[in-house]
């Protein structure tokens, strides 16, 4: 049986000419704590890998939408422990689940215990936006022992030598941040994005997924052929807040 991080990569890898893979993001337990698993199942069914946000009190890389979602989820009693327990109880999902969390809740849980609990809950990997490669050894070691991914993020500001190191160290996929900024922007993707993504793809042996500011079909058309997949976060959270069908929104993005 393949390792969890290999399942992520397999779900996202795209041959030239194939449509982009979709990585939808939801904040766990938002807008409804009771409907978390139901929402996750719908979203995972419409995506190739699903990203579940662990709410944190100080989400410094996130814009207003995910800040609002995180704050409400914490107020509703959502925590890392609760998420892991809910996932364990829910059983297999239609797509591999990756947890997006700031470092402190993970540190607080303890890395060894985290890797065990995550593996038991069917989680395939982690994205940790405030954990640069240089500080990540202890977590990577703990996750690798369980075959779990620690996805590295790269940005347009990342110099070439560092880009190669990050792609080499990443597992599951490489998360290519499209814009210099926080999540949830709506100012369009930079004109240089395709050239930047081509550069990332040329050094990465893993699938490359573009994220931050991806919210409309035209964005997917712009990225098509330059990435394996896209991460859709704030735009999807806003759909959920408005009470609309997340799967319909994701299909609309893909087919639009």
């Amino acid at each position, binding site marked *: 049986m393949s390792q969890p991080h290999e399942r992520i990569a397999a779900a996202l890898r795209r041959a030239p000419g194939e449509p982009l893979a979709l990585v939808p993001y939801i904040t766990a337990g938002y807008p409804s704590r009771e409907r978390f698993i139901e929402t996750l199942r719908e979203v995972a069914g419409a995506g190739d890998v699903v990203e579940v946000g662990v709410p*944190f*009190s*100080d*989400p*410094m*890389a*996130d*814009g*207003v939408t995910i*800040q609002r979602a995180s*704050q409400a989820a*914490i107020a509703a009693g959502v*925590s*890392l*422990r609760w998420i892991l327990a809910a996932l364990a109880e829910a059983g297999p999902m239609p797509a591999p689940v990756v947890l997006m969390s700031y*470092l*402190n*809740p*993970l*540190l*607080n*849980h303890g890395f060894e215990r985290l890797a065990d609990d995550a593996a038991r809950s069917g989680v395939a990997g982690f994205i940790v*936006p*405030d*954990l*640069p490669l*240089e*500080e990540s050894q*202890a977590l990577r070691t703990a996750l690798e022992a369980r075959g779990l991914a620690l996805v*590295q*993020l*790269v*940005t347009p*500001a*990342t*110099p070439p030598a*560092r880009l190669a190191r*990050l792609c080499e160290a990443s597992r599951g996929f490489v998360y290519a*941040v499209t814009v*210099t*900024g*926080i999540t949830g922007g709506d100012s369009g993707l930079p004109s240089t994005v395709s050239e930047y993504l081509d550069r990332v793809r040329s050094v990465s042996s893993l699938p490359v997924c573009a994220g931050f500011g991806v919210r409309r079909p035209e964005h997917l058309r712009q990225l098509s052929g330059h990435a394996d997949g896209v991460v859709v976060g704030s735009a999807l959270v806003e759909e959920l807040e408005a009470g609309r069908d997340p799967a319909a929104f994701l299909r609309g993005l893909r087919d639009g």
Partner: protein
Amino acid sequence: MLSEFSEAERSRLLSELLAGRFPDEHGRFGPFGGRYAPETLITALERITEGMHAALADSGFKATLDGELAEWVGRPTPLTAARGLSRRWGAEVWLKREDLAHTGAHKINNALGQALLAQRLGARRVIAETGAGQHGVATAAACARVGIPCVVYMGAVDVKRQSPNVDRMYQLGARVEAVESGDRTLRAAIDEAFRAWVADPEESYYLLGSAVGPHPYPYLVRQLQSVIGREAREQCVARTGGLPDAAFACVGGGSNAIGLFHPFLADTSVRLVGVEAGGRGAGLGDNAATLATGRPGVLHGSYSMLLQDPDGQVQETHSVSAGLDYPGVGPEHALLKAIGRVEYTSCTDDEALDALWECCRAEGILPAIESSHALAGARAFAREHTGTRLLIGLSGRGDKDMPTLSQFIDRIRS
């Protein structure tokens, strides 16, 4: 990642500290510190680190900084013999008068140094956060002096309770952004300043105001604030013929405390005491006494002590003093506590306010509520140690606290 050490480990860490080995090349003070920042900022942090080392080693930069510290900031600040407090407390009390530095607090030492660094690095804009508003005012003034536009993020709660400083920032040409997210105090202001910086890491310089944050900030801020302790040590020796028995500073993020303490670390006869904000009492959420009641964690870019709940969410804090109302603390303080070189205590809101009024009446000096925590800590120490020589870091003046203090006017009249 341990916060408790064996005796052997403590003495090894102390000798490495005294040998100047901290922070190491990874920005670590023992296990604390580091650089936990989004990837977008890593290149900018590298650039600042290199620029900082080059600037601090450049005699031209140092001459410019020293010249500005003398003729624009007004350094050296005096060491004042506090005769009234000495009599009342039965001790020999000396006040290091950072309240007399330009803009009214120690914050200017760091703001000026970093504004000059930002200029040297070619920054087009400076971003800063502020709690009490002292760092915001200092940054606004330093940026005006150096000629770089600046934006200051300030929690909406603090905008209200420190309104005189908001007006001063505008007068000095800064733009002030009231932060409505998170806890709407210093912590949310730092989150928001980081977000602004993440959006523009190439052209903006983040002028962080305390000895916190990702490497190199805890080191850079310490280097710029150590002028406080260097002067105080020299002045104390010149005036009294010896060193103090103990030195006191308030600790929020810990920049004035690290600045006062650092030059005394090797003087093992000098007891160093940091005083945290004990707020309303010991309950979680009632104070900002991070070193007393926190656990190790990561906030705002470094691994240090942190007030957090059982799930690792950062805890909301309370202090009557906006400048100390912060759930984290600089990583070097976490080390100094773990190895026992600095003692950390706390005083309550009421004890700080009593010390403030006592200082007003005994010395004719209105200290900041932040600095009044150091006074309260020293007063408690004097009760146990009669006749000792005490050095107190009076980190700032209390004019900005008038909106808060006027709420208590009845208590003073009674």
